[in-house]
């Protein structure tokens, strides 16, 4: 019986819910991300047992406990490395990494960078709440300059980094951003990430209701987000605003600027290209940050490159084709041997 004869059972979001009580704070943005994930997974046609969630440490990293798939809640910052080992050993699995802004960009920054540049076929979702939630509210590498927290009573003096810049600078093949409560948009982004072959890096703005409440109102509140965000569409010009009458154009220095569509023709605007050869376009979009500029949301980059796990498997196949399946007898007798009579 070939596998195509087997009807996959139709799964629903409920099938992906584990029996564990969810312990995030009330109105934490993590709930919404969990809900969207449970919605997306049944649409992928992948058997539940072939999906694995790997996380580090942080509020966000509790995520795998709430999914009825295989899961691994590991140690702080190391999820990309654990997931790499798993995916290389078992390329047929779909492996998701759940990380936070501290987990993924502070203690685990090195692993994140290397997983991305290797293009391991992982779906990495970084919950960015611009704060250390689990340890009760210290500033993080993404907290804005001047942020007052328990560890920075006079405001932070270190410059934040942009997760998307890190991902793009690490040669990511898929880069996207969405917002926890933007249900439709987040679902779309997760679906696209799931379907990408290679590392898919997704930053999700996530509200920490307790330690950093409202940090992303500009992008999540209905009335504010249309004013502040540009929803990227591949091949289309960058247009936004409640009346869709504003656009982005590159000025003489090649820098993006906001223009009125009353004065500038659509054709003269900056057009989005997910699959641009050079990452410069995606990088430029990633650096447009509210409140200085309207902030892009959606898929910044989606290109194709061989995956690390795929190449490792290919080398094994090639070596086996060339040398035959490894034979211990031959191995032991390789090199200089001699006979003692």
């Amino acid at each position: 019986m070939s596998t195509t004869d087997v009807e996959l059972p139709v799964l629903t979001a409920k099938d992906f819910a584990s029996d564990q009580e969810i312990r995030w704070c009330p109105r934490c943005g993590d709930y919404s991300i969990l809900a969207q994930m449970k919605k997306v997974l049944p649409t992928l046609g992948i058997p539940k047992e072939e999906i694995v969630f790997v996380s580090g440490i942080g509020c966000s990293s509790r995520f795998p406990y709430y999914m009825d798939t295989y899961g691994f809640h590991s140690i702080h910052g190391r999820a990309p490395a654990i997931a790499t080992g798993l995916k290389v050993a078992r390329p047929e699995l779909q492996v998701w990494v759940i990380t936070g802004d501290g987990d993924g960009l502070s203690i685990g920054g090195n692993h994140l960078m290397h997983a991305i540049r290797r293009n391991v076929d992982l779906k990495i979702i970084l919950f960015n709440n611009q704060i250390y939630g689990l340890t009760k509210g210290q500033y993080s590498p993404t907290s804005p300059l001047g942020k007052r927290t328990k560890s920075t009573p006079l405001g932070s003096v270190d410059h934040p980094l942009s997760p998307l810049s890190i991902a793009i600078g690490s040669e990511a093949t898929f880069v996207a951003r969405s917002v926890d409560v933007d249900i439709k948009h987040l679902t779309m982004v997760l679906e696209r990430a799931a379907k990408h072959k290679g590392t898919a890096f997704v930053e999700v703005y996530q509200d920490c209701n307790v330690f950093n409440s409202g940090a992303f109102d500009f992008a999540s509140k209905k009335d504010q987000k249309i004013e502040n965000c540009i929803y990227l569409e591949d091949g289309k010009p960058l247009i936004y605003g409640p009346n869709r009458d504003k656009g982005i154009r590159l000025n003489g220095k090649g820098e993006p600027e906001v223009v009125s569509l009353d004065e500038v023709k659509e054709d003269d605007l900056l057009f989005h290209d997910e699959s641009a050869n050079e990452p410069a376009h995606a990088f430029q979009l990633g650096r447009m940050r509210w409140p200085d500029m309207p902030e892009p949301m959606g898929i910044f980059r989606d290109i194709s490159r061989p995956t690390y796990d795929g190449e490792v498997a290919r080398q094994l196949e090639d070596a086996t084709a060339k040398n035959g399946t490894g034979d211990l007898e031959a191995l032991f007798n390789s090199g200089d041997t001699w006979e003692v009579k």
Partner: protein
Amino acid sequence: MRCSASVERREPEATRFNEPTAFDSRTDFPPIHSEITLWFRVTDVRITSERSHGPLTSITERATAERTKHDMSTAATAEVNGKESQELDSVVIRFCGDSGDGMQLAGTQFTNVSAVFGNDVSTLPDFPAEIRAPAGSLAGVSGFQLCFSSNEIFTPGDEVDTLVAMNPAALKTNLQDLKRGGTLIVNEDAFDKGNLQKAHYESNPLEDNEALAGYRVHKVPMTRLTRDAVEGLGLTQREADRCKNIFALGLVYWLYDRDAKPTEEWLSTKFAKHPSIAESNLRALKAGQNYGFSTETFTVHYEVAPAELPPGKYRKITGNEAVAFGLATAAKLAGKELFYGGYPITPASDILHELAKLKHFGVKTFQAEDEIAAITSIIGASFGGALAVTASSGPGIALKGEGIGLAVMTELPMVIVNVQRGGPSTGLPTKTEQSDLFLSYFGRNGDCPMVLVAAQSPADCFDMAQEAMRLAVEHMTPVFLLTDGYIANGAEPWPVPNIADLKPITVKHPTEPNANGDGYLPYLRDDNLVRPWAIPGTPGLEHRLGGIEKSDGSGNVDYDPQNHQHMVETRQRKIDLIANDIPEQEVFGPDSGDLLLVSWGGPFGAVRTAVDRSIKAGKSVAHCHLRYISPFPRNLGDILGNYKQVLIPELNMGQLRHIIRGKYLVDAQGYNKIQGKPFLVSELTRKIDEMLK
């Protein structure tokens, strides 16, 4: 019995040469090679069968070794080609020179040639710590010592019979190890003003009758002779000079009556694409041999007959190679893929290099971004069902600590190879030490027990790598395999195992629910407290692992105080129970008596040799060599109680001693050497004598 060959580092590929000049043997000592003490004649050796039966048979079994003392009287003398030929039982040679002089290569070739001839061999490569120490400097000296014998041997020798020194720095740093009356061969061309200065010599020691009195000195203009030999091949002077190690090798081949054929073949293959380099090296080799044959200075040459090893096929193997072979074998026996995640570090990197060649065995190697990623990647691979392994040393093992704790908590199988080197911090990267026992035993947060096994010789790494993997997968625990730089780079003849004799490894991945109803409980334990290893892709057994304390059985997060006490005790008990699955400890020598030496790891050969000699000298001494450290063999406590005194020699400040004293409340004494070098047999015999006074 160990012979070894070593690893080539930054040594130039080979060399070529020229031809002879005069030497001078200004001292006229009889050869005293026969004093070389440390070899055994083994009358009841069953190495082949023991090794092929896997790690559980202890090497102590073949301890019916009977030492033959070699003295002048055993040396037969004959006349060959007008030169005198003497037969010796064992010889220790050391090649030393600048780390650009190709000493590792010369030593490795001599080892191969002797092994193929049938001698037992043991080697000790000694690398400079700085890869780019200035040429000619004291810090840049590289050495390769080997012992070859017509008897079974366990160490590369205490004292050097023949020292080949390629420059003043090498002479200065190595002369103290040459025995009185030993043969010294120097490249006199290298003793120019600049090199003498770099070696901090105020005057030329070769012109100083006092300095070298007591040695048989042969001053050979190797640089010039090598250049002459390769003349006409169109080499640059630099290329020509790189052949002088091969000239020196040829000379020593003549001195010890070696058949150069394996080296000639090796050179021809190695430089097949560069015929002029191949030719120049072959000429250098020949010129070296001819020089010995035709010049007046070498009046005697020596023969060392083949050793009486048990019949069968042999191969030379280093410890790192043996680890790689053992792991690949374990995977094959278990019918699984091997996943290796590692970050390069001396002296462990060769394990990665060896495994990277075995892709057709289904071996996947992952060069991680650091040691933290290395250990965590193998945790992921193990969760996925692969046989997972990482290897590192000192600082790298320190970085892996948190990850190993996660492996203990999630009870996933994997092997962590710890090729120890001198510490702390960067320490002595190229030197051997046993100072990371504590790190391996205790180096994790929480009460965090795991299995520790230790290989005792290069070939034993093959057995212990398999044993480590067997214990890991059959008991669902991370396992440390301890080796050290000495074992890792050293080599010995290895009886090629019979595949059918290898011990199988059983891996079980459940496919059915194990709980009432249709649930799967990832921490439902069997009688040995071992949990099941269900892997992703198995329908119905979806579960989550993690580093937070968990409820026994379900594996769900659990902060309950009683549960934590239960889980900590259970994890310890699970490791303790493994004592039932490892062999009882054996003792070499009497079952009770005045003194018991307890050792682990690399010192095996030196301690065994010293104890054997003391027994032969009528002393009441025994040797207990541990290959299992956590848990200890179940009868160890009884053994320790059977002797009036216990001595634990270690290349550290007394780490095993600390653990044994704590566990068994015995007043064990230590003998501790922390010099980056292995024990000498003579040091140990002295200590034994002192304790028995």
